[in-house]
């Protein structure tokens, strides 16, 4: 049961403040909105030079302990980067790589951590393969199988929405092994044997792949600590929700800017359309939804990983931020009139991003359902 009387505080440290400031300028410089379509059309999955810069800024190791080459902070600091990147619809492997590092930290063996975490901090891209064609949000629903054959594991089945897989130096996949869930690490060699197909996804700033694992074998040593699998899956799920919430809050702020700009400049019946309350009031409602979601986001960042309190907070942040972006971007299309129906209008970019953020790792209704069971 939730103590609704408890005084809630948001912790926001100096590192977060600095990172938010730097990341806001970085996102504006490197991912200007007027180049969004050029970024979508680019043959490369992402801009390598920008990625290298992100690595050299130390952003890939923010939530990695110092002993592995990171800066020993946490996901609360990662949020301050994911949010501004989301505002400018950046497409980078930042989130997937961060999540892979989290999986390793939670369930990797000592050797796996030693080998991979320092590489990740330096820019090796990680991809996470935990979703399957059935599309179920329950990460324990696993059709992909690993079968033991001596010192190797034979894999079968297909993973979906494996973002940034083509550039990944490692992929962590969830499998069913002997009836229970397990996590397995695929390196370049193993990936070479799998088939990777580019997926056509609604958010065109993302690079998503379908990973077909039939015929792939990996050494048993690639198994992460099985005793930690359940905890790791829960951790990854919550971390993904937190970072998706950050991207969605950023996106909501971004699309509010887009629609406000239009409402201030477009005239009909000799008046700026922003003077019409049928447009003004819903735009204010979008702002209120953003403010609420953002307050939940930074609260969830502060209590991340703190048992039930952390879980409740992150589910609330995810639910409210998906709804905020959905509403703001949906109205943004409508409020641009005919132009809103075009590919050229930025509103669609945010709407597409909104659907992605909403349906990955559970939509608002799904999280509210979980929350009801946690709270009542």
């Amino acid at each position: 049961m939730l103590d609704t009387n408890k005084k809630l505080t948001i912790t926001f440290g100096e590192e977060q403040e600095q990172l938010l400031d730097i990341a806001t300028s970085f996102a504006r410089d490197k991912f200007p909105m007027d180049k969004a379509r050029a970024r979508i059309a680019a043959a490369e999955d992402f801009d390598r030079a920008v990625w290298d810069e992100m690595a050299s800024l130390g952003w890939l190791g923010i939530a990695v302990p110092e002993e592995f080459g990171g800066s020993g902070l946490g996901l609360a600091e990662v949020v301050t980067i994911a949010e501004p990147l989301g505002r400018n619809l950046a497409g980078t492997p930042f989130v997937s790589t961060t999540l892979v590092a989290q999986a390793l930290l939670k369930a990797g063996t000592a050797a796996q951590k030693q080998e991979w975490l320092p590489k990740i901090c330096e820019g090796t891209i990680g991809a996470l393969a935990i979703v399957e064609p059935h599309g179920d949000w329950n990460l324990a629903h696993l059709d992909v199988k690993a079968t033991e054959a001596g010192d190797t594991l034979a894999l079968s089945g297909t993973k979906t929405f494996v973002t940034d897989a083509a550039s990944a130096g490692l992929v962590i996949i969830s499998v069913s092994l002997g009836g229970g869930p397990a996590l397995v690490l695929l390196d370049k060699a193993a990936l070479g044997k799998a088939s990777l197909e580019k997926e056509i996804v609604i958010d065109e700033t993302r690079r998503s792949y379908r990973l077909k694992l039939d015929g792939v074998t990996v050494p048993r040593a690639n198994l992460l600590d099985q005793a930690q699998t359940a905890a790791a899956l829960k951790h990854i799920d919550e971390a993904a929700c937190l970072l998706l919430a950050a991207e969605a809050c950023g996106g909501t702020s971004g699309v509010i800017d887009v629609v406000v700009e239009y409402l201030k400049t477009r005239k009909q019946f000799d008046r700026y359309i922003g003077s019409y309350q049928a447009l003004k009031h819903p735009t204010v409602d979008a702002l209120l939804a953003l403010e609420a979601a953002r307050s939940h986001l930074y609260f969830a960042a502060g209590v991340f990983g703190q048992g039930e309190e952390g879980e409740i907070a992150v589910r609330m942040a995810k639910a409210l931020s998906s709804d905020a972006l959905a509403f703001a971007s949906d109205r943004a299309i409508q409020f641009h009139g005919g132009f809103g129906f075009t590919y050229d209008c930025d509103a669609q970019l945010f709407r597409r991003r909104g659907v992605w953020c909403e349906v990955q790792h559970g939509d608002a209704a799904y999280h509210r359902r979980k929350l009801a069971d946690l709270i009542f």
Partner: protein
Amino acid sequence: MSLTKQELDEFREEVRAWFEENKPADPGFLLPLSFMEVGTDEQFYFLRDWQRKVYEAGYLGMAWPKEYGGHGKPQALQDIVTREMIRQKVPFMTNTIGLNWAGPLILNMGSEEQKKAYIPGILSAEDIWCQGFSEPDHGSDLGNAQLKATRDGNEFVLNGSKIWTSLGRHAKYMILLARTKQNTNNKYEGLSFFLIPMRIPGIEVVPIRKLTGEYGFNQTFFTDARISESCLIGKEGEGWQVAMATLAFERGAVGGQAGGHAMMSREVAEVVALARTAQRGGRPAIEDPTIRDRLVQFVMEERSMMLNSARSRIKALNVDRPFSIPMSSKLVGSEYQRRMNQFALSLQGANAAYYVGDDLAYERGQWQRSYFNAFSATIGGGTSEIQHNIIGERVLGLPKS
């Protein structure tokens, strides 16, 4: 002066204990739910005594200057008190208009004499204040107020009417927006702002019955009522600016209030408790998935307000639209209350149709009454629609409607 966490915690303990010990017993009659609904003398005297007791204990106007009856202490202490009052659901501070908008206004721009004359009585509830802004024909369009204040030597003569005057029957003073000049280029220019006495010849206060059937606000009629020019606050002709400053205090967009709560808010925990006793198909309503979903949404909303207030204190998290949270808190809070109360009725099944007085009504009909009273805040102090306009224009920079 900044206090350590330990000092704040100790203070909270002290305050908690004081209110637990001193909170008034059930008076045996229904108390109003806000300062806008004080309808009977017994309600009024009960609330006035209660405010005086809180003030005398040192828990009101804690951050106001000592020379006018305040305590010159850090705002953080007053905030602790106000939160504790809300938490313990003790009766609200009835002189809200004085404590939270006339008071800070006078401290901010009043003369030394005005501060000396008015502030102590505001705190002790000796002098109740009311607000004369709205008129029968001009409410949202406040800048169009027409009540006439005509200069006659060093006096002004008041003629016209103000309406929806909360606390008007009990008030000794009023903050008044009146027109001192006719036919100006723009409607705002002819306005002036006054601190006026209520108990003078030519002022008549007539109670108005509100939607709950009780009394609360009033209409105030002015017929050749004479006031001294020393009642002016701010310059003659600059009343609009003063009114705007007052509204900023009223809506909580600017700090400086004496503290204490102004209304009894419902909490989601009470709705959850209701959902545990209300029935659906012979089972507690809280087991119904659609009801659970709605409840979760209210839990999240209530948290949003607390978290917004926490986040508004972190500068780095309010860079893009710095006034967004303070300017929207009235809108968000009042609409939340209205919808939550409405939902609470829907939980009660057929019995939601009972009203105060019927012994089958849930909790003696309190939810029905608080639902109706919730509109006081979605209409009073600038309607929710007007709040949307203000936020759209001032926070988002949208063109005026």
